[in-house]
């Protein structure tokens, strides 16, 4: 593709010339300007830390120039790098202008050298990594793994009390629902008395008076107040009649009642 005669005047040595030629032929093989710069830097045959960035910039610019002459279309990033290196070159060659801001040519050059050294280091590290013993190639995992059975055990918790409460809930709902809908928010003492009479037969032990409130009267504050008052009044009436005993351990403590044993 490239005619070597074109480069004779520029080439510093046969090997350089051959390399430059190879570079142009392989331009698609480079992974961008930094990769190309790293390859060019090898011609200097020195430690990357001691590389001459000026020389490298010149090599790169020559490369781009040749590519143009050969009408090889370079990607935009190669041209951007060329422009930047031309700027760097001028900075490096001209004496520093004290009026000018920004980093010095040396600082920029040092940074480029750092970038090249870092890329080179990463490439070597990648190679060392891939050279390690690898799973499935050099060392192996268990060939017959045993499945760990993931038995998800769901325990449902339900107690006898849950069961009884559930049943009581169903039955009381049936019996007291009509009251909740038919009456207003007043639970009369007559109603309470009637209700208590039916129940105290079972109240053998101290029972919180609150538990005598009819179902459906506990949630709404107004209804609860009414039911509490009437139930309390009814319990007083029953105590007066000698049917029950009332107990309250201290002020505002729960009031408990139980059937009076004859």
């Amino acid at each position, binding site marked *: 593709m490239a005619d070597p005669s074109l480069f004779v005047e520029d080439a510093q040595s046969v090997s350089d010339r051959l390399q430059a030629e190879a570079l142009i032929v392989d331009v698609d093989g480079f992974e961008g300007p930094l990769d190309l710069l790293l390859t060019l830097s090898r011609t200097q045959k020195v430690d990357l830390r001691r590389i001459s960035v000026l020389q490298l910039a010149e090599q790169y610019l020559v490369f781009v120039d040749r590519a143009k002459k050969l009408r090889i279309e370079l990607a935009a990033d190669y041209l951007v790098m060329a422009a930047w290196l031309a700027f760097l070159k001028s900075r490096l060659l001209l004496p520093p202008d004290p009026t000018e801001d920004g980093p010095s040519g040396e600082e920029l050059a040092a940074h480029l050298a750092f970038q090249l050294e870092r890329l080179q280091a990463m490439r070597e590290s990648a190679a060392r990594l891939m050279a390690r013993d690898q799973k499935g190639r050099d060392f*192996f995992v*268990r060939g017959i793994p045993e499945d*760990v059975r993931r038995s*998800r055990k769901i325990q449902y918790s339900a107690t006898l009390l849950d069961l009884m*409460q*559930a049943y*009581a809930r169903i039955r*009381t709902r049936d019996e007291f629902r009509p009251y909740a809908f038919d009456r207003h928010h007043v639970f009369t003492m007559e109603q309470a008395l009637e209700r208590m009479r039916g129940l105290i037969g079972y109240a*053998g032990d101290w029972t919180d008076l609150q538990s005598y409130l009819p*179902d459906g009267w506990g949630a709404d504050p107004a209804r609860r107040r009414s039911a509490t008052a009437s139930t309390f009044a009814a319990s007083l009436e029953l105590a007066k009649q000698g049917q029950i005993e009332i107990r309250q351990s201290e002020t505002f403590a729960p009031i408990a009642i139980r059937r009076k044993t004859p």
Partner: protein
Amino acid sequence: MTDAADTEPRDAEKSLFEAPPMAEQERMVEAILFASADPVSVAEMAARMPHGCDPAEALVYLRRRYEGRGVRVVKVGDAWAIRTAPDLGFLMQKEIVETRKLSRAAIETLAIVAYHQPVTRAEIEEIRGVAVSRGTIDQLLELDWIRFGRRRMTPGRPVTFVVTQDFLDHFGLESARDLPGLKELRAAGLLDSRPLPGSGTPDDDSEDQSGQSELFED
């Protein structure tokens, strides 16, 4: 076969391709058995190991080495494999125990079955006042707390549900008849949430009461 015929070159070969020491062969067998996806026959081991190796002998040592360990070298047909020691099988199980509260629908359905058994689905729905989902029944069946009873001898011959022995065990009951307060509730014609008199021990009563007051709150 051919090398058995002429012994001379065999000796020469022997020195060139001397088999590795037995300890090394044992390592090789160990690695092969560990990594192979299937049990490996002695012939196959020999084919994979360097010339002159005796995997059968190496196996004897390896097998002995693993005696009493967490894994064992076992024979599978005419091949060999490494397997977990049978007494440690329980380690291959990761149990995730989740405790969940039984849904309200489930506990209510269960209560109805317990109190009214044998009971049909239609009857459960009548008592609860809402339809009983298939999932609820399935869950209780799966928990082994209810089971199918005899079919009711009514039109359609619906299946009935009864509670199981597991149910009784779980709730600490001798029989469903022992359900606290069932008899009393019936006798009083009052199936509501009062403390159930005379049911169980006095201790139970006090427990009931704490529960009962909760009933009014929800």
